[in-house]
Structures are given as C-alpha cells and as structure tokens.
C-alpha cells in the first residue's frame, strides 16, 4: 500500500494523496529552496521531476488520478523564464485545452491545480502546497474516480 493510507492511519483522519508534476529548473529548485530555508509544509505531495512543463503529457494527469490521486498539481517556470525558452508556453496552451476538457467532463477543478513557481519562490511553493492540501482535504478522497474501475458495465447492472 502506498504511504498515504498508512499516513492517514498515523495522523488519524484522512490524508489526501497529491501528485505534483514539476519542471527541473524552476519549481523543483524552488521546492529545494524551501528545504534549504527550512520552511515547513504539508507532507502529502509526491513530486515527479520532469525537465520542463513542456514534457508534461495530459495523460500523466489522468494516470495520476487513475492511481488514486485525490489531487494533481502541475507547476513550472513563469512565462518567459523557461530554461528551454518556450517549453512552458507550449505547456500553457495544452493546459488551456486540457483544463476546459476536464472541467467539461465534470472533474472538480479544485482537484487539479496549475501554477508558476520560480526557483526563488520557495514561499509561494509552501503556500501553494498548504492551500492545495487543505482544499483537497476538505473535499475528501476522489471516490468518483477511484471507484470507476470496479463499477460493473452498465448492461449487467
């Protein structure tokens, strides 16, 4: 079992599973900075490091939800600051499309967050994680999605 259930066991009460896809140069470094500056934030997020937000395929996000994520966070360099000059502009386009699609499908947008966090914005990172965690904690586990697999096909209901 993954840590979150276990964690819920320890802290008592429910602990949301949150997956973060971040770029290597800005947000990951920003998260590191939060560490080196000994800031503190909620322990629920699990980071997956990618070179650039431009590498992030919407399927990652879908897969994260399929794997029981209660919330997903995507973050990278501010527009104009991309280490690869334009990667995050491409990302922004895709997100605009994808966000509307998810919204239209009825995914609760409080479970899917997009953000720009630069290498120096440790504080922003901390606030972001805390806010996202608290918000999702309020919402509770993403049962609608987790439940999907075991729901019987309609014909056999």
């Amino acid at each position, binding site marked *: *079992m*993954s840590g979150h259930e276990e964690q819920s066991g320890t802290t008592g009460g429910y602990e949301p599973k949150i997956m973060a896809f971040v770029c290597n140069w800005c947000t990951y470094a920003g998260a590191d900075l939060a560490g080196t500056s000994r800031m503190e934030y909620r322990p629920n997020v699990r980071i997956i490091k990618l070179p650039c937000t431009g590498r992030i395929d919407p399927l990652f996000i879908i897969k994260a939800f399929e*794997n029981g994520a209660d919330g997903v966070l995507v973050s990278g360099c501010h527009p104009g600051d991309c280490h690869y000059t334009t990667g995050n502009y491409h990302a922004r386009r895709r997100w605009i499309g994808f966000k509307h699609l998810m919204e239209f499908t009825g995914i609760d947008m409080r479970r899917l967050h997009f953000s720009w966090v630069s290498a120096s914005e440790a504080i922003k990172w901390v606030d972001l994680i805390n806010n996202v965690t608290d918000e999702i904690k309020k919402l509770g586990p993403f049962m609608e999605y987790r439940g999907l697999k075991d729901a019987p*096909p*309609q*014909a*056999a*209901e």
Partner: protein
Amino acid sequence: MKEKILRRSDIGRLIDSVGTKGGAFVAPALVARQVVFKAIKSADEVSFDYILARNSYKEFVFPQTEVVADFTFTGNKVDLRGREVEARDTVVFGARPCEATSLSALRAVFTWDFVDEFYTKREDTLVVMTVGCTKADEACFCTTVELSPESKSGSDIYLRETETGDYTVEALTDRGKAFVELHAGCFEEGDAKLKPLVRPEVIKGIDLGKIQSRLAQRENYADPVWGELTRKCIGCGACTYVCPTCHCFDITDEGTAFEAERRKNWDSCQYESFTLHASGHNPRDFQFKRWRNRFMCKFTYYPNKFSSKGCVGCGRCVRVCPVRLDITEAMEELSK
C-alpha cells in the same frame, strides 16, 4: 389442446420470481435510443418492439471484461490468486432463434481443449427464452444460413407471440423445463391465436456450399476479390463486438507497482495489432486479410473444426457497420 402461456402482464411476476430466487433477468430494454440486452428489475423496463437487441446476450456468459486473477508483489515474489467465477442463475428473455444457436459455437471454443470455467459455469446456469420473430429488416438473413424463426437449437424455452401480445411457451431442454417448473406460478394454460412469424427472404445468388468449396481451395485464399470486397472496411471492431459468435479475447494485466489484476477482455480480429508479432511483422498486414479471416472463421474454420455455425444470420454486423459493409454482399460475390 391447451398450451402453456406466459401473459405479458405476468412478466413482471416472472421477473420478481426470478429475482427472489436470486437469479438475474436479462431482457431487451431501451438504453440511449437503442434496444439492448440488459439485466432488469421490473417489467416496465422491458421493450417488446424490436427486431434484435443491438448487442448479443453473449456478454452475460462471456463478459467484455472480467478479472480472472489478482496478484500482489512482495519482496521478489509474486503472489497470484485465481478468481472463482460465481455464476448467478440468469435467464435471457427475448432472444431470437438465430442468435440462440450461437451458444453451441461459443461452447465449442471455450471447451475444445481447455475448459474455460469462466464461460461454462455461466452458460450452465443460463436459461435462454427465445421469442420467434414477428418482424425482420433488410439486414436479417437467417434463412440464407439455413436457420429460421422456427429454429430451436440453443433455446431452452421457445416462445411465440400471440395476437394478444402474450406468449405460448414451449420448454425444450431440461433446464428449460426446470425453469418453467420453478416459476410455474407465472405461467398458465390456455388457447392462443398466434401472430404469424416473419421469415426473411433467402438471398438469391448465395450458395453456402459454393462458398464452402471455394474457400476450401487454397489458391482462392489470395483471390483479389477479397481486396475489392472489403476495401472500404475501416477496421473497427464493431462487427465482432456485436456478433453472437465472435469470441476472441485477450489477457492483460492492469495495476500498480503494488498489486494488479489479470483481465480477460474482448479482442477483435479486425484490429491492426491483433496478429502483430513482437518482431513487428504482421501476417495480416492489410485490412482485407483481417476481414477475410473473420469471414473464413465463420464459414470454414469453425464449421470444419466444430461443425458449429459460424454465422447465424442475425445481421448485427451489417446494421452496426459505419461504412455499411454487408457480409451478405460478400457471400453473394463468393458464391459466383
């Protein structure tokens, strides 16, 4: 003489009776503007105005996806636990004589060398209540494949509509008789004026014998006619998924790094990747070859291997095809 009759008004009671005895009642019902076989709870869900349900009831003996095993990873060992299929008594109401015959074809496949309990256990507890057709459309061609609204093979109970919309009941198999016994309260004796059956015209120019022998000849395998006949096929699996005799499946594992399940999923010979080899080579590299495979599966391989019917002439594949590729047009062509 008096006949056993199932009043339309009694179907509700029959459903309840089946339900109370822990059984599932499958009947044609309207879902998203289509009549489909569906497990139902009450009589008002049942729809009586249809030719054939869009889907075959095979999915109640051979579900589109089912878990056959679970496994979990601990240390370096994998712990795999097979699933037991718990078959629930199921009655299918309103099947058509054509599709009823498909069960023998399916059983043949699922039992000829390895007995697939996921199928057999379900089929053993299945009661098929066939209703003779009082309607047909241009896609129906049971008569062309030597079946008819009277065909009774595969049915456990054979029903015929009466003028009053009730049904005369003829229990054919032990399972059928037992069922009627079990739910005796829902049936009654009486006279009935039968609605005439409607039999589709035999399509002239189609000669199964000719087709058989033609397919038997190796050289015809490479006959360019295949290409011309099926050029328009776009290779979706719709025909195979609605076909009552198609039975191909694929075993796939789904899960996380911690645990997973092994699933048995429908597959279709129409897919490009169906026979794709690991090497990248595909013996059925063109769509017409895939279509030829399905055709021969119906008219050579299975008849020869199991002497079972490959095609029951229900016409579902014709109705569902996005490009209106009509198997009978191919049969006609190949009868020349």
